């Protein structure tokens, strides 16, 4: 069937749902159910993670195309099938999702006290949806998972969230749904034109340029909200603030990546001309996002909101990288997505640690924690530095590769897009100073406890990954190296194809202008 000899991807995708069914069947006292639900969820997610490690070790990174492919006819007369498969671009996101889920379950161990069974159930459903999104090779299946993510996330925010949870949950749901409807239209149009819903076929289908423009805009509507890009980012801070810690971790760690993944899976390879045409728009929105949201982050008084805004700025670097259409840029964007998944997830966990103790996210309520919580101070410092993009941590690699990639496009793009380096240092160090440094003056902080063994277990893998990704990033980049360079080559060929066609259509100037740029930009 595939390298693993059995449908590994389907197993990773659907196993959490099975675990959910087990949780649903639990009976007994409320406390017993809660305890069993926790353990069942943790074990399920750990087994899923172990399976995805198998995926990681079996994955052949020298191969640019899809692997572990499963293809079961579903609606054959409509060209729709249950198709699963991963390539270098998606495989690490599967791992990111399966890594963060057990961490989130562990993080909710004591923080979630009401409806524990339902909470764990919803989390496992969420895992299925996330993994499915990254594995789907048929856009009907993709759309199902992509939209399916909304439901558990909506519930997590709406039920287990903070005081304004209903407003935030609605905002999150409506924003995302509004964009997705347009994406559905685009997918239908593509299906109508190509006659199949198979993503691997659509990747090599040439759509007419005029049609591409409309398709691109429809995809943009959906993915831009998900990333989120400026100016459709305002659902994110609200959702983060109200979501429980684990919800924020998944939201920042995985859900935001779906938008950027969509750009990489659909927009850039399927709509090359339109992507190139609209790239300046993306650059402009991204540069605005970097500067605008970094400044807004500086003014925040709520820790979670600050980190949420920093996420918008970091994801803007990702969108710049994707639309540079060269290897450094896209590699950097992918790396930035992975590192942001780890680092921002960890930062939300850091906030969660002190929120669990003091039940406030107000920055002004803290100060001088270094005195009482040295281990926490060190952990928080590491992730702060990674968020700033200090060399040797995960955050640096993506940022610097995008900087290199964007320089090939334009000097100012790389300078302004890189300005997050400065502004990021401002707001993160300012946050750290107000929370950790200074004199411990508040009476209620005097007895605050340092990290518990459970919390250390949460942070340990993330700390290791952050350093590993910074010191030896090659062990991650080689997974997507070949897929990305294949995509870049294909994109260049498509663009040169149009410029040759344009040249034939008596535009001698255009060919002279476009071709050198394309050559410059690729390697």
């Amino acid at each position, binding site marked *: 069937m595939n390298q693993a000899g059995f449908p590994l991807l389907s197993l990773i995708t659907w196993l959490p749902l099975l675990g959910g069914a087990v949780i649903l069947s639990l009976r007994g006292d409320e406390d017993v159910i809660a305890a069993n639900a926790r353990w069942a969820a943790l074990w399920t997610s750990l087994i899923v993670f172990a399976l995805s490690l198998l995926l990681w070790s079996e994955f052949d990174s020298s191969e640019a195309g899809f692997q572990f492919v499963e293809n079961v006819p579903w609606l054959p007369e409509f060209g729709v099938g249950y198709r699963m498969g991963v390539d270098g671009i998606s495989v690490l996101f599967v791992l990111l999702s399966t890594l963060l889920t057990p961490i989130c379950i562990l993080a909710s161990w004591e923080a979630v006290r009401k409806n524990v069974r339902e909470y764990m159930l919803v989390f496992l459903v969420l895992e299925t949806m996330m993994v499915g999104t990254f594995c789907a090779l048929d856009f009907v299946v993709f759309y199902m998972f992509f939209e399916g993510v909304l439901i558990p996330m909506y519930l997590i925010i709406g039920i287990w969230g903070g005081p304004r949870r209903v407003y935030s949950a609605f*905002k999150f749901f*409506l*924003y995302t749904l509004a964009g997705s409807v347009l994406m559905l239209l685009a997918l239908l149009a593509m299906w109508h034109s190509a006659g199949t819903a198979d993503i691997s076929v659509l990747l090599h289908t040439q759509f007419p340029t005029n049609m591409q423009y409309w398709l691109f805009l429809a995809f943009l509507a959906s993915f831009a909200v998900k990333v989120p890009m400026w*100016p459709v*980012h*305002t659902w994110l*801070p609200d959702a983060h603030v109200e979501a429980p810690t684990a919800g924020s971790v998944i939201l920042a760690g995985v859900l935001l990546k779906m938008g950027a993944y969509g750009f990489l899976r659909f927009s850039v390879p399927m709509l090359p001309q339109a992507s190139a045409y609209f790239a300046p728009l993306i650059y402009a929105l991204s540069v605005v996002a970097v500067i*605008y949201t970094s*400044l*807004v*982050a*500086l*003014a*925040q008084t709520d820790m979670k909101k600050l980190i949420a805004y920093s996420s918008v700025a970091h994801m803007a670097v990702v969108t710049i990288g994707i639309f540079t259409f*060269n*290897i*450094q840029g896209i*590699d*950097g964007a992918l790396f930035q997505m992975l590192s942001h998944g780890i680092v921002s997830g960890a930062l939300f966990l850091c906030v969660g640690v002190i929120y669990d103790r003091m039940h406030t996210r107000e920055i002004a309520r803290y100060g*001088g924690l*270094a*005195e009482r919580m040295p281990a926490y101070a060190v952990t928080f410092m590491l992730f702060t*530095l990674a968020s700033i993009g*200090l*060399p*040797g941590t995960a955050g*640096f*690699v993506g940022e*610097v*590769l995008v*900087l*290199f990639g*964007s*320089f*090939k496009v334009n*000097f100012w793009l*790389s*300078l302004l897009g*890189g*300005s997050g*380096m*400065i502004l990021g*240092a*401002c707001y993160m*160090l*300012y946050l750290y*100073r107000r929370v*950790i*440094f*200074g*004199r411990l003056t508040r009476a209620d902080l005097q007895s605050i406890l340092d990290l518990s063994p459970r919390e250390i277990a949460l942070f340990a893998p993330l700390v290791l990954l952050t350093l590993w990704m910074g*010191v*030896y*990033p*090659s062990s991650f*980049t080689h997974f997507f*190296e070949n897929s990305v*360079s294949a995509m*870049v080559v294909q994109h260049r060929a498509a663009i040169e194809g149009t410029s040759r066609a344009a040249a034939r259509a008596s535009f001698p100037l255009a060919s002279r202008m476009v071709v050198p740029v394309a050559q410059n930009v690729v*390697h």
Partner: protein
Amino acid sequence: MIYAVAVLAPLFGSTIAGLLGRAIGDRAAMAITILCMILATICGETAFIQLVWGGAPSSEIRLADWLSAGSFHVSWTLRYDTLSAVMVAMVTFVATLIHIYSIGYMAHEHKPVARFFSYLSLFSFAMLMLVTANNLLQLFFGWEGVGLASYLLIGYWYEKPSACAAAIKAFVVNRIGDLFFAVGIAMIFFLFGSISFSTIFAAVPQHINDTYALFGTNDRAFEVIGILLFIGATGKSAQIGLHVWLPDAMEGPTPVSALIHAATMVTAGVFLMARISPILEYAPIALGVITVIGGTTALFAATVGCVQNDIKRVIAYSTCSQLGYMFVAAGAGAYQVSIFHLITHAFFKALLFLSAGSVIHAMSDEQDMRRMGGLWKKIPLTYTVMWVGSLALAGIFPFAGYYSKDAILEAAFANGSPSAIYGFVCGVLAAFLTAFYSWRLLLMTFHGKPRADRDVMAHVHESPVVMTLPLIVLAIGALIAGFSLRELFIGADWHTFWRGSIGNAAGNHVLARMEDIPAWAALAPSVFGLLGIALAYYMYMFATDLPGRLAARFAPLYRFVLNKWYFDELYDLVFVRPAFAIARLLWQVGDATIIDGVPNGIATLAEDFSGQAVKLQTGSIAVYAFSMLIGVVLLIAIFLIFR
């Protein structure tokens, strides 16, 4: 091999002290960091000696892969050539002495100091990575690493708000330069397709005439690169404009200041200029800019140093000024001279800071010179070494500074371009001011009547031997480094010493022409230096009321200089306050009102509309019947009209 040990041993010490410091205790942490530093020093010096006299070939020591993306490959590789080896030898030596000194200086801390030693070693490691980098990204790793370590050390006393503010300021101001540096690296990759030094330097001839369109005009690409990297150096080396973090860095413990100012951190920018000299040599405009900024900084910082009252602040501004000299030399094309001054400066500046620390230690943490005076009999050893340091700083024969500073000014004069002459003039004037503020410091601190209260004076004592021993070693260095290294670094045989690790263009004969400059130009810095000392003696020993009268007479000028030319206030007004104001505006108006206003407005609209629509359903049969009737009439009318 031993070279790699020299670089990595401090990292090992730092990790052990940092992670296990609480478990193994302060003494063990100190022991392990210092042993690692001593090991690094032995290896560093050996590597240097082997390279220079032992006939070891220059080489590249590859440790591991780092990063690759398409045609972009970077590895962790140590570069073993003269420039790197000189820096390694100096950094390990000075940093080890500072470690040892810190045992005594930090002895009175109430909290565990393992963290402090861990940071010190981390600082040394980052600097060693910087100077041994074989590619620009690894250099950037060290570059950011020293930024981090300085942030941690300046903010070491994290309970002090001023220390936290200074730490953030240092990091952020450095980051501004770093962004330009990073973009400069990106441009080098764009142009050369590689960022590894050997590849870049070999390809320089092919790219000399490349152009790059910035601001719509075609500029020479090397000029753009030179300027971008120089802006990076400006941040790290505290040149005018981005110098504001350096004086505030005083908030850290004094050994940190010594480390920042002498061995690590601020010299990185000068080192970078020497490292990329093969490119800079073909960027005359960039070189001109470097000279002018360097000269201006030398003079500007010297004026500020003349009126400061905090003993460490005076020395801090002197560093700023001396770095300006080094940039003048680099800009004049005499990179070897700038490295020469960097090395001699490392000795006497570490000496000055550590002896200032010894004074502060003796005075129970008093730093204001107005409350010192009359100390020389009580702490004679500190007094003596401070003299040595000041003589070296002022460039008095035969101390170290005499050789290197004179060489810089000779090189600037020999270069002869308008910018270099500007650098020369600034340098000579700054030499006068340097001597003046150095003796002002000496006289205010050690001479005259004691101005401290009696308790403090009774407690004044010479520092313990772990502190005085490094002082003596550094004093010897400040005395002999000049004449013993001069021949090697910039003598007739400099080619065989540097072995091409610093690039000089074919037409660059500055080093050769230094000997031929007129006698008056060669003597000017020494004469001006002696005049400065004489003036300081006159003002602070004989006419002691003169400084006060001058300050009152020229009050606006005095306030201008005392307030450091109002740079901090200006930046606060132009950058910091507006940034926070704009941030609040964007958040509350941009996000909350405008961007959120649209969806919230649509929601309200829909709600209102449905509220109105609901009212149509009144439940009254009569109303329904009546509206049906109107509908029928309308339909019939339409039908009749369009039939």
